[in-house]
């Protein structure tokens, strides 16, 4: 009777009302030969005490959760304020459905409207949707959108984009036969603009770059602005929203669609999800954008109210003609991002960006003093690639010190041996960075 609303005798009363003697008879329409004529083979049910004990024990096997974390690469260990957690835990928020009944969903709707506003301001875009699945899939949706707008079926990627974003984009492209070309990255881990330019042909709908790029490098975005303009292709920029605390919005260098991973905004690491993808675009492309959107309107009394709008793009009305098949958003994650941005505010948000960046620069400046470590490109924001001898051994030493020293780049690039991608957030202390330096051979 776990999570069942009735008492046994109420079930009997209901059966009586229905004029049947057993619940089984409600399944008489299911042919015997598709019925499961045995009990499912599942572990025995646990009561709440057993369940919590078991899951707590399992959680403790995630030893890395307790380590000092220098891994970034698309998911960042920023601090999630208590205020964010407390408010997102309001059950009116998390146990509600999509706000289709606007009159009783103004909480979610107003918060999404705020989200759209703040993200539009951060990215410089005219309009931002209510969030989609995550950073990688939002890029996938963006290339479909660009190809639809441009009625072309090729997209050219910077070679310095997150390799898993590329893989995801290819999967999205596969459905509609979109050709994904990818340039290489230079020895200093920047986009090879010349090669990228060459890949852009008449069939190309858009160029995709990451800013900062996967290697943490702040790209020379003037280059891509020039190419996109010259070739009349759309520019899709994938960005880490935290960096927009200091960096100019992608609109300033010609972005038509801005996407990215919203996790750094008040969402925990959670082994990769749930996160939220954000997507914004220029006003002229608004109706081509996937995902739900909240608009301001009034109620019958003329009072301000919010409601899901532009639904004519969506599948429950347009079915196969819809802009996208997406019919949900990551509402609760977007709510966390909204509260995060509001709570940190103008100064707090800039400070988080600044501290993350300053920690990175401190590491670089200290590392530069040593011969044992090579900084591949110091023009970075919050992540940097380093090369050290005997990386595996040093990595192991770090682990023994309960430290995750970064991502070994050979996971994605076999050619990048002995290289580590190290991320810094405002949470990392000077002492932790010093310990990292020590482990990496800088003392």
């Amino acid at each position, binding site marked *: 009777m*776990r*999570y069942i609303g009735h008492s046994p005798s109420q079930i009997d009363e209901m059966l009586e009302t229905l004029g049947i003697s057993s619940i089984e008879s409600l399944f008489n329409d299911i042919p015997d030969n598709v019925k499961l004529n045995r009990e499912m083979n599942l572990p025995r049910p646990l009561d709440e005490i057993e369940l919590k004990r078991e899951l707590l024990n399992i959680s403790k096997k995630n030893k890395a959760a307790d380590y000092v974390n220098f891994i970034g690469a698309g998911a960042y260990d920023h601090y999630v304020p208590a205020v964010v957690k407390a408010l997102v835990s309001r059950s009116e928020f998390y146990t509600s459905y999509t706000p289709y009944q606007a009159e009783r969903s*103004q909480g979610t709707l107003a918060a999404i409207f705020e989200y759209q506003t703040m993200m539009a301001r951060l990215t410089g875009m005219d309009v931002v949707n209510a969030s989609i699945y995550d950073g990688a899939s939002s890029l996938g949706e963006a290339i479909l959108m660009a190809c639809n707008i441009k009625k072309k079926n090729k997209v050219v990627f910077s070679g310095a984009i997150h390799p898993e974003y590329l893989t*995801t984009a290819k999967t999205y492209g596969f459905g509609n036969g979109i050709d994904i070309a990818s340039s290489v990255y230079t020895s200093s881990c920047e986009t090879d603009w010349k090669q990228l330019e060459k890949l852009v042909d008449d069939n190309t709908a858009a160029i995709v770059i990451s800013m900062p790029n996967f290697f943490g490098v702040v790209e020379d975005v003037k280059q891509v602005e020039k190419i996109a303009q010259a070739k009349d292709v759309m520019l899709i920029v994938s960005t880490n929203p935290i960096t927009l605390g200091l960096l100019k919005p992608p609109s300033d260098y010609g972005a038509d669609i801005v996407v990215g991973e919203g996790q750094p905004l008040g969402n925990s690491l959670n082994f990769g999800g749930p996160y939220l993808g954000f997507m914004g675009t220029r006003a002229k492309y608004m109706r081509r954008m996937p995902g739900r959107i909240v608009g301001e309107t009034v109620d019958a009394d003329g009072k301000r109210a919010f409601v899901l709008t532009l639904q004519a793009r969506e599948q429950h009305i347009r079915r196969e003609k819809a802009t996208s098949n997406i019919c949900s958003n990551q509402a609760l994650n977007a709510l966390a991002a909204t509260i995060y941005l509001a709570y940190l505010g103008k100064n707090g948000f800039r400070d988080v960006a600044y501290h993350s960046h300053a920690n990175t620069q401190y590491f670089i400046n200290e590392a530069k003093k040593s011969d044992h470590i090579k900084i591949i490109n110091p023009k970075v924001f919050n992540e940097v690639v380093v090369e050290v001898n005997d990386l595996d051994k040093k990595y192991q030493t770090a682990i023994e010190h309960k430290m995750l020293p970064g991502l070994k780049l050979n996971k994605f690039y076999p050619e990048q041996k002995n290289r580590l991608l190290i991320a810094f957030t405002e949470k990392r202390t000077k002492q932790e960075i010093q310990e990292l330096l020590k482990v990496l051979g800088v003392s």
Partner: protein
Amino acid sequence: ENVSLIFEKSRKGKEGFKLSSLKVPEIEVSQTLGEDLLRDELDLPEVSEIDVVRHYTELSRMNFGVDNGFYPLGSCTMKYNPKINEEIAAMSGFTELHPYAPEELSQGTLEIMYDTQNLLAEITGMDYFTLQPAAGAHGELTGILIIKKYLENKGEKRTKIIVPDSAHGTNPASANQAGFDIVNVKSDSEGLIDIEALKTVVDEDVAALMLTNPNTLGLFEKNILEISKILHDKGALLYYDGANLNAVMGIARPGDMGFDVVHLNLHKTFSTPHGGGGPGSGAVGVKAFLRDFLPKPLAAKNDEMYFLDYDIPYSIGKIHGFYGNIGVVLKAYAYIRSLGAKGLKEASEIATLNANYLLKKIENMFDAPKDALCKHEFVVSCKNWKEKYGVRALDVAKRLLDYGFHPPTIYFPLIVDEALMIEPTETESKDTLDSFADALRKIYEEAKQTPDILKSAPHATPVRRVDEVKAAREMKLKYQG
């Protein structure tokens, strides 16, 4: 009063969250990043902590969740979300784990993933599961891409996906997004797939049929084995939209019905909260012959070590960053471990009992098949209300808000006029069902006697009926303060 926005509470210089001063040396960002890359202004709110807490607390109170009352939203399975699952998902061992942390230090979550894949396989009768898709529609896209890749690998160029006219809108949208043409097939007078109509459209160009079973009318497609044979005989596959699995757990499994690919909505059947529209999880299961087309990676086990298996030769690639909405998967796992085989079956049984009971209590007010046998949900039509009293399904829905209930799904499925699609779920008590039926009956009387009360409803909500047309026309999509 108007719904307030945080921007309106902003005052220059107010502070909420504030870091201590920097402990490493200060830097000059115009030098480290370059002057031309810096932004001029950052227009975010400036509010204090108490402002933030009060504002979002107030917003929350304008929402309605399962914890606030009955939520019989058809096709959405708004069942109770256990608090213990929230507590578990908030354990720092789970929340603080980076997706690229070494596998040997991430054994806990990998174990959860591996076990969940297998539990879902047993529940559905499938062989392999991926947890990567983030939502139902995302699962559909994944599943259809798997089918596409499989066919491509076989050297077949099938271009069509069949979708019943009663299907969720996402089915055709997802198939379209995967590059297929959509073929609609109609329902018969019983509300089931018209077998003869189906036969006429299944040919060598058909890649798959997408089906929900029980379907969106809450009816079990009893000819499912025949349907399966029709498709398979032509080399086409059968896709299961798991939105309605809550009706049949432990009773009948899509795998045993002949389905080749299924997606599940963990946020429906397995009780993870909907979060105001997400996050969800749209796990996809396949028969063994499709395993090698699943997205990468899968959770796997080698002796006593769990690991992420990227060895999937014909994988469609990735459909989501990292591994999917693992925090959601964790809650579904906890739910399955709490209920076990008997509990899950009981959930489906009581969900079905509740739907049939509620249908019985209200059917005489509506155009509804009398004494029909539904599964976990049912659809009634307000056509007679409209004809007789000029009152629409929308009005009924809005009026239900005044009675403290969340309305059912309305105007879906499209094949039913003025549809109310009602899914009570197993966690609701007879008392709740009875009071909902009573409220509907009162509203029915109001429709006859004072229909304007319905047409101008709701009256007791934080805002009155909203002007959707104005919203779509004016397109105010952000605050212009």
